[in-house]
């Protein structure tokens, strides 16, 4: 029931601070938000329906375009689901490379979040600092797979190609410099009086509510719930590396900022450990029905050529059944629920989108806050509309 003195204000879908095409209908009593209703779907591309007409290999490129700030993570969640469906084991070197890429991707995603979130609140400098480091990571991604934003680097059974020459040195140099860079960001924001006033106590959500909403990722951990899939249900060899999972106390915007900063430091730690422990060996599973032959063979042997052609055009059949596999992506729990009818194309390709579920708690978080807080809270959830709308 709208009080006669409330005003309905439309925010978005074109808005610099909604991080994509998000529309929020705000019912205001002066500057206080009485009700906020998000309206999504402006970036809906029918990805789940498209995938039903593609072979399992072809779907990998679709997954890049979900959370486009964390392409490697999307690829990983998807190929893990397909490998689970097939019952396929991935060799240790491929697993280590996957962890390496996903942790670099976590840093890149959080850096982009940091820059844009700070920019929304009014601190414009961190964006330039954060993008400087992110660019180094994207350069490394380009070294391995040719693409900065849409890697499609992982394959069912391993990774597309091995790490190129010069990658390890570049990556090691990055991990040496990075902690000092995070210290730089902290000098700008963490003890900044304006930052603290704009973020402390804003948009808090309790642990029980966060669990009941199904929130995941840094937003759940900031509400003092120590749940991280890399520790709780490890995948791809994460149990081999030592790292801390940071949690917050109050679940407000400030805590989410601290949690993500710490996650960047920890991700850097994991990257260092992976580089130190990188096992030798093959980067693809020994499963010819599913895995592409090496490119050198394809240009020299007719059998390899036929093999490659068959996989590329017809794909591979899968056992009839259903699986769910998920990872701890930078946004939260990213999962894929695949239903197979035995053919070479998925019958159902369901993406469990962390940003979608995290955003559903927005109306709860902004109730009773000021209009200026809405921007801070939306930023702190860290959403990517492509993942929400698919």
């Amino acid at each position: 029931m709208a009080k006669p003195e409330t005003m309905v204000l439309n925010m978005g879908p074109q808005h610099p601070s909604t991080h994509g095409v998000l529309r929020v209908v705000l019912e205001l009593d002066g500057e206080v938000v009485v009700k906020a209703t998000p309206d999504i779907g402006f970036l809906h591309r029918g990805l789940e329906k498209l995938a039903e007409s593609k072979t399992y290999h072809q779907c990998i490129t679709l997954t890049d375009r979900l959370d486009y700030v964390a392409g490697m993570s999307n690829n990983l969640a998807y190929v893990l689901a397909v490998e689970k469906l097939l019952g396929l084991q991935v060799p240790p070197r491929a697993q280590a490379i996957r962890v390496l890429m996903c942790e670099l991707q976590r840093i890149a995603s959080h850096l982009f979040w940091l820059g844009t979130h700070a920019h929304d609140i009014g601190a414009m400098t961190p964006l330039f600092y954060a993008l400087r480091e992110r660019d180094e990571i994207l350069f490394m991604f380009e070294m391995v797979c040719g693409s900065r934003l849409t890697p499609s680097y992982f394959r069912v059974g391993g990774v597309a190609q091995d790490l190129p020459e010069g990658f390890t040195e570049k990556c090691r140099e990055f991990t040496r410099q990075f902690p000092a860079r995070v210290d730089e960001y902290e000098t700008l924001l963490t003890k900044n009086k304006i930052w603290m006033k704009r973020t402390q106590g804003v948009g808090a959500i309790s642990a029980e509510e966060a669990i009941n909403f199904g929130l995941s990722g840094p937003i759940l951990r900031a509400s003092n719930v120590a749940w991280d899939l890399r520790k709780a249900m490890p995948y791809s060899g994460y149990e081999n590396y030592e790292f801390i999972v940071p949690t917050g106390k109050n679940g407000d915007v400030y805590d989410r900022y601290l949690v993500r900063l710490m996650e960047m430091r920890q991700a850097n730690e994991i990257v260092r450990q992976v580089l130190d422990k990188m096992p030798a060996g093959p980067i693809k599973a020994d499963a010819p029905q599913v895995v592409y032959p090496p490119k050198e063979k394809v240009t020299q042997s007719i059998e390899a050529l036929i093999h490659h052609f068959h996989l590329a055009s017809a794909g591979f059949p899968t056992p009839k059944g259903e699986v769910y596999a998920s990872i701890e992506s930078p946004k939260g729990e990213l999962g894929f629920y695949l239903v197979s009818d035995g053919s070479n194309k998925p019958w159902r390709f369901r993406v469990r989108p962390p940003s979608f579920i995290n955003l559903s708690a927005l109306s709860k978080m902004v109730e009773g806050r000021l209009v200026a807080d809405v921007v801070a809270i939306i930023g702190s959830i860290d959403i990517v509309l492509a993942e929400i709308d698919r």
Partner: protein
Amino acid sequence: MNLDELSNKIKEKFPQGILATSSFRGEDTIILRAEDLLDICRYLHDEPEISFDYLTDLCGVDYFPREPRFEVVYHLCSLKNRCRLRLKVPLPGESPKLSSVTSVWKGAEWLEREVYDLLGISFVGHPDLRRILLPPDWQGHPLRKDYPLRG
């Protein structure tokens, strides 16, 4: 507790509730009767030993032309016991309806709206059942198998 123990506990309280159970690739699935869904979900959520306090995902699948045509799939997770469970409810193709579980997990609100939007399955007791991704005046439910790829 394993799948047999869990389904026995459920059968004690809801004797007609479970239609089938299965396991594949280390994942447990229980197929439920639509009438008992809400009560069983509440039981799985509230019972302290079982404690499925986290709704990971809620989605629908269209198995056209099989009858029952639809299935609504719930992925539950217990943070305390670090385990997962899949629940499935088969629904007929003709005006499919199911109880909403928003009173158990708030996160179901948007997820059920998406199932309604893309598959046309209605959720009884949902506080705000309307389209979420598509414009409100859209005709049809695109994720259905008889909806063409190019709408």
